[in-house]
C-alpha cells in the first residue's frame, strides 16, 4: 500500500555524556492528503524529534539518523543530504512547519511581509510583487485585519495569537501538501487555542493539506484528530482511528493517559495517575519501555513488544490484550463529592482588592497615571475549602495572589485572614502572621534555590517561624513533611536539580506545609508538569486537604483542572471576577458569556462528546489593560453587549444558591 507521505523504521540517536541515547526507536507512520493526524505523548516521548528527523532538520551532530526511510510519493528522501537542493525544495516547499513558541519563532528584526514572501519566492518562484499579493491574501485567510498595511510591521507589534497566525501564513506560503504543527497552541490561551486550531484544520481541509499535529493535550486530539499515534519513550505504542482509540484504548499507557486527565463533562471523580516517572532520555531498559510504570506488566514484557494489528487500522505494542485489562480494572470509579456543606467558618475574605501600577513617562519618569491590573475583586474562602481562580493570561489571577500576600505595591482594598485585616498592617508587624498564608509556585525548576539541599528547603520555614525547639525535632519534622508529600526522607541531602519536575513540586508543597499555614495559595502548581504527573500532584493536594483540613486558593488557566479540584470557582477576565459559584453549578449552568465561551473553547478528551459539541468561537483577543473598556470589561467581545454594557460596569449579582454573575444581560436572558 502506497501512502502519500510515509516514514518507516526511523531511528534517531543523540550523542550524550554517556554514549549515544536512542530518542526515536523504529517509528513508522503515514499520512494522506487532507487528513488530520495527531501525535500524542509527553515530553521526551520523541514526537517532535520524529518529525524534525524526517525533514532532516535536526542538528547533526549531536543527532544522528541511524536508519529508516522517508517516502514522499514513493521517493525516499533519505537519499538526499540535509542541505541538498532537493531536500530544501521539499522542506518548506512540500512540507511546511509550525512551531510551538509564536513569541520566538519569528525573526524579530525582519518585517513579517518579508518572512512570508521569502518562502513563496523561494519555492513558487514568484516575483516580489506577486509574492506580496500572495502574502496579503494569506494574511487575510489567517484572519489578520488590514493585511496590506501590516505587511511592513515587525513581529513584536503582534500578540501571541496573531504571531501564530502569521506562522501559519508562512507555512502556507509555498502551497505545501503537508503541514507539521509542533504543539502549535501550547503557549496560547484556551480561547486563542480554539481559534488557531479551527483555522488550521479549516485551511488544511480546504486546501487538501495533510496536517500532522503534535500535542500533549488529549482534548485537542479528541476534537481534531482522524488518526492518532501515541508515543512513549521513542516508540509508537498505539495507533489507529481516533474513535477507536478513545473508545477502546489497548495499551496500558494510553489507558492511563485517558484516565489521568480531568474532564469537564464528567462529575466528581478521582483521577488515576500513572505511577512512576516519565522516561528520561538516554535511560532505556530492555523490553517494553513502559513496563516499569505499567500496573499489568508480566514476565513477557522484558522483551520488546511489536506493534501488532488489533483490528482495522488499530495497532498496539503490548504483550497483553486490552480485554484482560478491562477485567483487571475495578469497574466502580471512586465517586467523591465535593460539597460546600460542612465547611468551616470564613478563613480568608477579600474585599474590593485593587492593584494599580503607576505609569511613568518622560525624561524624569514623572507619574502620569495609574494602570489598573486588578479592578476590585471580592471573594471569601471557608476553612477546608478550595476556591479556584481561573482565567486567561493577563486576567490578573497571579496579581491577585501577590496582592493578598502583600507582595506588591499599589494594593488597596481589604484582606481579612482569620478575622483580622492584614493589608493595612505594616510588614514588620505582619511578619509573624506570614506563616499562616503560604504559596506553591508554578515553576518547580526556578522556584527552588539550586544550591540548598531539600532538607533545608523544606525546613527553612520551621526555623524562621521558630516552629521547632531543637535539631532533633527539626530533622523529625522535615522527615515527616517529606513522607507526607510522598518523598523518601533519605533523599533529603540532595539538591533540587537531582529531582524530576513532579518531585520538585512535591518539595514545594512540603515547604508550604512546613509553616502549618491556614491558607495555601497554589499559583498554577501543575502547568509545568507532564500530564501523567499532573494527576499525581492533583491527587496529592486533594489527599492533603482531606487529611489536614487545608484551605486552598487554586489559581490556574486550565478550567478542567480547576473544576476538578475546587469546591467553588471564580472566573476572572481583565482584572475582574465575572462569575463565581459552586464548581458543579458553574459548569452545569454557566451564565456569563465569557464563562460560556471559555467552557466551549476547551476540548474534551472524548471524540464522541466532541462530535456533538458546538464549536462556537469567541471573537477577538483579550484587550490590553492599557485600553480597559469603560463599562463591562467583556463588552467589546461579547455578542450580547448593549449600550449599557459599554457604559456601566456591572457588579456581581448573587442568586439564592450563591451563584454570582457580573453581567447586565443576565436578567434579560443572554443566550440559553
Amino acid at each position: 500500500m502506497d501512502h502519500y507521505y510515509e516514514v518507516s523504521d526511523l531511528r534517531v540517536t543523540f550523542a550524550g555524556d554517556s554514549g549515544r541515547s536512542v530518542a526515536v526507536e523504529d517509528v513508522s507512520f503515514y499520512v494522506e492528503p487532507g487528513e488530520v493526524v495527531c501525535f500524542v505523548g509527553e515530553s521526551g516521548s520523541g514526537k517532535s524529534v520524529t518529525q524534525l528527523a524526517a525533514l532532516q532538520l535536526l542538528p547533526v551532530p549531536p543527532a544522528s539518523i541511524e536508519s529508516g526511510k522517508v517516502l514522499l510519493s514513493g521517493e525516499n528522501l533519505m537519499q538526499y543530504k540535509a542541505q541538498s537542493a532537493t531536500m530544501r525544495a521539499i522542506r518548506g516547499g512540500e512540507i511546511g512547519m509550525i512551531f510551538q513558541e509564536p513569541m520566538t519563532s519569528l525573526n524579530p528584526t525582519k518585517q513579517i511581509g518579508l518572512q512570508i514572501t521569502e518562502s513563496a519566492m523561494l519555492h513558487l518562484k514568484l516575483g516580489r510583487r506577486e509574492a506580496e499579493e500572495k502574502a496579503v491574501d494569506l494574511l487575510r485567510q489567517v484572519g489578520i485585519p488590514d493585511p496590506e498595511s501590516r505587511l511592513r510591521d515587525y513581529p513584536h507589534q503582534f500578540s501571541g495569537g496573531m504571531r501564530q497566525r502569521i506562522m501559519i501564513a508562512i507555512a502556507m506560503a509555498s502551497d505545501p501538501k503537508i503541514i507539521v504543527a509542533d504543539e502549535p497552541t501550547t503557549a496560547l490561551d484556551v480561547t486563542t487555542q480554539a481559534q488557531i486550531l479551527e483555522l488550521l484544520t479549516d485551511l488544511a481541509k480546504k486546501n487538501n493539506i495533510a496536517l500532522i499535529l503534535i500535542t500533549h493535550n488529549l482534548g485537542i486530539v479528541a476534537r481534531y484528530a482522524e488518526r492518532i499515534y501515541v508515543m512513549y519513550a521513542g516508540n509508537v505504542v498505539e495507533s489507529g482511528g481516533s474513535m477507536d482509540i478513545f473508545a477502546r484504548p489497548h495499551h496500558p499507557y494510553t489507558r492511563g493517559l485517558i484516565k489521568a486527565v480531568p474532564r469537564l463533562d464528567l462529575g466528581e471523580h478521582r483521577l488515576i495517575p500513572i505511577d512512576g516517572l516519565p522516561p528520561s532520555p538516554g535511560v532505556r531498559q530492555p523490553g517494553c519501555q513502559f513496563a516499569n510504570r505499567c500496573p499489568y506488566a508480566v514476565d513477557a514484557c522484558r522483551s520488546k513488544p511489536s506493534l501488532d494489528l488489533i483490528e482495522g487500522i488499530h495497532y498496539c505494542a503490548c504483550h497483553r490484550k486490552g480485554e484482560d485489562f478491562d477485567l483487571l480494572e475495578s469497574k466502580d470509579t471512586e465517586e467523591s463529592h465535593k460539597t460546600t456543606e460542612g465547611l468551616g467558618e470564613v478563613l480568608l475574605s477579600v474585599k474590593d482588592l485593587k492593584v494599580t501600577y503607576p505609569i511613568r513617562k518622560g525624561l524624569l519618569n514623572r507619574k502620569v497615571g495609574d494602570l489598573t491590573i486588578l479592578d476590585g475583586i471580592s471573594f471569601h474562602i471557608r476553612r477546608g475549602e478550595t476556591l479556584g481562580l481561573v482565567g486567561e493570561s493577563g486576567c490578573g489571577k497571579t496579581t491577585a495572589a501577590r496582592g493578598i500576600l502583600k507582595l506588591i505595591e499599589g494594593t488597596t482594598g481589604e484582606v481579612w485572614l482569620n478575622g483580622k485585616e492584614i493589608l493595612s498592617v505594616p510588614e514588620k508587624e505582619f511578619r509573624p502572621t506570614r506563616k499562616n498564608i503560604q504559596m506553591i509556585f508554578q515553576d518547580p525548576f526556578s522556584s527552588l534555590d539550586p544550591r540548598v539541599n531539600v532538607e533545608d528547603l523544606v525546613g527553612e520555614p520551621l526555623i524562621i517561624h521558630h516552629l521547632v525547639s531543637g535539631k532533633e525535632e527539626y530533622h523529625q519534622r522535615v522527615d515527616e513533611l517529606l513522607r507526607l508529600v510522598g518523598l523518601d526522607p533519605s533523599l533529603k541531602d540532595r539538591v533540587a536539580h537531582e529531582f524530576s519536575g513532579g518531585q520538585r513540586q512535591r518539595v514545594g508543597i512540603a515547604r508550604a506545609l512546613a509553616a502549618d499555614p491556614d491558607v495555601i495559595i497554589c499559583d498554577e502548581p501543575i502547568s509545568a508538569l507532564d500530564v501523567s504527573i499532573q494527576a499525581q500532584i492533583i491527587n496529592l493536594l486533594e489527599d492533603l486537604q482531606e487529611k489536614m483540613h487545608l484551605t486552598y486558593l487554586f489559581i490556574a488557566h486550565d478550567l478542567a483542572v480547576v473544576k476538578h479540584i475546587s469546591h467553588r470557582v471564580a472566573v476572572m477576565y481583565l482584572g475582574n471576577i465575572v462569575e463565581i459559584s459552586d464548581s458543579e453549578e458553574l459548569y452545569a449552568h454557566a451564565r456569563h458569556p465569557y464563562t460560556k465561551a471559555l467552557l466551549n473553547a476547551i476540548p474534551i478528551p472524548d471524540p464522541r462528546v466532541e462530535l456533538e459539541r458546538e464549536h462556537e468561537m469567541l471573537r477577538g483577543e483579550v484587550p490590553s489593560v492599557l485600553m480597559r473598556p469603560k463599562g463591562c470589561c467583556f463588552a467589546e467581545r461579547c455578542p450580547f453587549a448593549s449600550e449599557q454594557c459599554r457604559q456601566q460596569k456591572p457588579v456581581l449579582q448573587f442568586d439564592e444558591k450563591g451563584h454570582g454573575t457580573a453581567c447586565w444581560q443576565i436578567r434579560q436572558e443572554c443566550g440559553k
Partner: protein
Amino acid sequence: MGRYMFKRIGQAVVVLLLVSIFAYLLTYMIPGDPVYAMLGGDITQEQYDIAYEAMHLDQPIVLRYFHWLMNFVTGNWGDSYRYSQPVAALLGARLPVTMYLGIWSIIISTIIGIILGVLCGTHRGKLLDSILITCANFGAVMPAFWLAVLGMYIFALKLGILPTHGFVLPTENLAESVRTTVLPLIALSVGSIGGTTRQMRSGMLDVIRQDYIRTARSKGLTERAVTWKHAFRNAVLPVVTLTGMSFRNIVAGAISIEQIFAIGGMGSLMINSILSKDVAVVQACIMLTAIVVTISNLVVDIAYGVIDPRIRVE
C-alpha cells in the same frame, strides 16, 4: 524613532555638562593658585593681574564656570603655556591625526572581526573555528605596545620596508601616509579584532540556537541565507555595542602607540600636558574625548534602533 532620538540627545547633553563641571574644577584641584595652574609659575605680576581678571577670579565659582563654559562653546579654549599657542590651534593639528588612526582602526577591526566571528560561529567545533578562536584569543591578550615594537623590529629595522616612526596625513602625501600608517594601525587593531571576533562568534552561536532560525531552516533556505539573512542582523547587535565602546579607547590606545612611533597626536599631547600641568590643554582634551565618546554612543543607540525594530518602540 524621533522621540527616541530626542531623548537620547537630551541625555547626552546632560552627560557632557557633568563632564564639563569636572573638567572645569580641575583648575582648582591642582594645588596652589589657579592662575599659576593655568599659566604656569613663570609669569610677572602684570600678567598675573590680567589673567586674574580674565579668569573672573573675583566672581563666585558658579559664574566663573559659566564664563568658562561659554568660552569653550564659542571655541575660545585658552592658551597652552607649555606650547605658547592657543589650545584650539594646538588641538586642531593634533586631533585629526589621532582620529584618522583611530577611526581606521575601528573600521578595520570591526569588519575583520565580524567576518572571522561569523566564520567561527558557522563552523563551530570544526578545525577552522579552533584555529581562528585561538588566534583571536592570542590577539586579544597581546598588549598593543608589544605588537608595535615587534612590528617595528621586523618591518622597519630588519626588512627596512616601512619607516620606523613619523606620521603623514593622506592629504599631504598619500603613498607616504600609507607607509607610515600600516604599523601603528596593525598595533592598534589586532586587540580589537580579537575582541570583536569573540563577541561575534558568541553572538552567532547564541542566535543560531533560536527558534526563528529553526523556522528559517524549515522554510528550506540555504544555510548561507539562514546565516546572512536571518542570523546576522540579530547576532551583530552586541558587536555594535562593543564598537561604540572602542571609541573611548581611541585616545587611550593612542597614548602608547603615538609614543612608540613618535606620532604627534592627541595621546602624546595629553600625556605631556598632564605631566607639565598644562591645565587648559588637559581640560580641552577631556572635553573633546567626552564629546567623541558621547557622539559615538549616540550613533550606537541610533544604529541599535535601525537594526532592531523592538528598540524603537521602547
